[in-house]
């Protein structure tokens, strides 16, 4: 009885590991194989041997500049995370410490976004950005991308600030700090854990976003993030596997490496974000 339960567990674990790892295995090994070997021996040792040439060709290809795409995407991630902190931080502080009716109304307005997925707003947002002349521009993209981070970030921040004793604010005020100064100098430094959580949530969100860079920036802007770049590169060339696999590997590698090192933080951050959001 106990032996058979153990066998059952082992079988379950083996199936799970194979199902989860097989695609990654193919992604990594096939990035170093020739077209002929990918077509005839996708799972096994290639007759032509492994070679870095395909990866190198993808890395230096003029069609899709992967390195530039990393740089642009990373730049977007950093700017949106910083903007989000600058915009949401003070607002969350005002709401968490506020006691008047308008605080609740503002909280309600700011949280509406929790129920409205970004992809359904793309069309009217294009209309708005077009009206103010920011469509297809990086500032317009930043504004919308930052807006999408407001609801979850605000929700987590407000909950956290309310757990910080008000005596700290009082002490800072007696020492002559303004409300703004109190937030940035006294409260914000105490918010490290929740800031880490939201930065991870927002970074993963911005890095993986496809719809907004695709439709708000558009291919005509010539600005490609990793996701829109790989989409443009692969849908054009999808029969040549020596381009497809290396490109996919290049696009996936940085996030996977980041994930391997940061997995505790990432999983923890996303869990606490989801459970509260």
């Amino acid at each position, binding site marked *: 009885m106990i032996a058979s339960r153990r066998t059952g567990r082992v079988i*379950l*674990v083996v199936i799970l*590991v194979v199902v*989860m790892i097989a*695609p990654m295995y*193919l992604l990594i090994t*096939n990035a170093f194989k020739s077209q002929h070997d990918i077509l*005839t021996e*996708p*799972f096994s040792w290639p007759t032509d041997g492994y070679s870095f040439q395909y990866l190198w060709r993808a890395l230096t290809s003029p069609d899709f500049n992967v390195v530039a795409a990393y740089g642009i995407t990373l730049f977007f991630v950093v700017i949106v995370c910083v903007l989000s902190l600058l915009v949401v931080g*003070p607002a969350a502080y005002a*709401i968490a410490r506020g*006691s008047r009716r308008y605080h*609740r109304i*503002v*909280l309600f*307005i700011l949280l*509406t*976004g929790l*129920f*409205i*997925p970004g*992809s*359904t*707003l*793309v*069309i*009217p*947002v*294009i*209309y708005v950005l*077009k009206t103010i002349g920011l469509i297809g521009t990086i500032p317009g993209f930043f504004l919308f991308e930052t*807006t999408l981070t*407001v*609801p979850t970030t605000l929700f987590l921040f*407000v*909950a*956290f600030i309310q*757990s910080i004793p008000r005596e700290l604010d009082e002490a800072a005020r007696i020492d002559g700090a*303004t*409300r703004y100064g109190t937030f940035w100098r006294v409260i914000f430094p105490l918010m490290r854990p*929740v800031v880490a959580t939201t930065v991870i949530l927002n970074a993963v969100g911005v890095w*993986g976003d496809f*719809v907004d860079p695709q*439709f708000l920036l558009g291919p005509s802007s010539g600005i490609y993030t990793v*996701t829109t770049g*790989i*989409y443009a590169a692969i849908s054009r060339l*999808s029969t040549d596997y020596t381009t*497809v696999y290396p490109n*996919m590997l290049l696009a*996936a590698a940085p996030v996977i490496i980041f*994930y*391997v090192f940061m997995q505790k933080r990432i*999983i*923890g951050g*996303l*869990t606490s974000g989801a*459970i*509260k959001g």
Partner: protein
Amino acid sequence: MPTSNTTTVGVVAHAAAPAGGFRVRPGALRAKRRETLADIGMLAPALILVGGLIVIPLFFALYLSFTDWDGFTLPAQFVGPHNYIRLFTDPSVLHSIGVTLLITVIGTIVCNVLGLGLAIALNRNTRLNAFLRVLVFYPYIVGPVILGFLWSSILGTDGAVNSVLGQLKQPLLPFLSDPTWALATVICIIVWSSFGVNVVLYLAGLQTVPESLIEAATIDGASPWQVFWRVKLPMLAPTVTVNVVLVVIGLLRVYELILALTEGGPAGSTQSFVYSILSSSFQNSQLGYGAAQSIVLMIGIIIASVGITAARRRSEQAVAA
């Protein structure tokens, strides 16, 4: 883990509590006005962003849905409820709604059953379990666009699986080239790429079930099966709600994975609702029509998430009563 596990429920209640009492000190009025001014400064940036890029677009979407805007000519022509009538008589849109509902229902059930089952199986803190947790979660980090392309290179007609089948002299399997197969494949890959999140969330939920409760039930002679149904599951009710709502919201708007995996094909058989919205908007330049579909989807998402939460709450109250 952040130390902020305490005050989630208190957010709104706390904001409502009066802070200062009723004594009005000299100069208090001026201080209060200064505080309001500071508040405005702190709230304004967030309000402008959300107002300008969520609230106003919401109303614009509503307005656009009654027009024939093509994305270029402003102002748009008013066409009344035409877009909505067209939407509910357009076979391709209705099909995409059907596909989305099918994906959502099956995906929600399978992801949650798998997620909860594996969470219970992996709940002990061993090295292997920690590794498995990292392993099931990684698709979430890699993202749907890359995963879609990866799976299409694995399951396509000349993909990895079919090339092995060919060498074994077996008939090829039309994973992505037959309409029925393609839909099944899409659902399987959606489950594959998202159940890890549920595993992780259920694991976090299981941490909140007190060990003493399980011990007490076991001492009273409950079988592991009874412990699951009578102790763990009721304690996990809020986690179940969160998981179901998250998966439902996520799957109602599924798009990127399908775009990369099948491009909605073959013959439109795997087009989801968001796919239909974006293709009528951008490939066919019918942004008014796309806006009408967006509004329908938004209403659907709100009904689904509010409905599930309410149903859960009612059943919890029924249990309590």
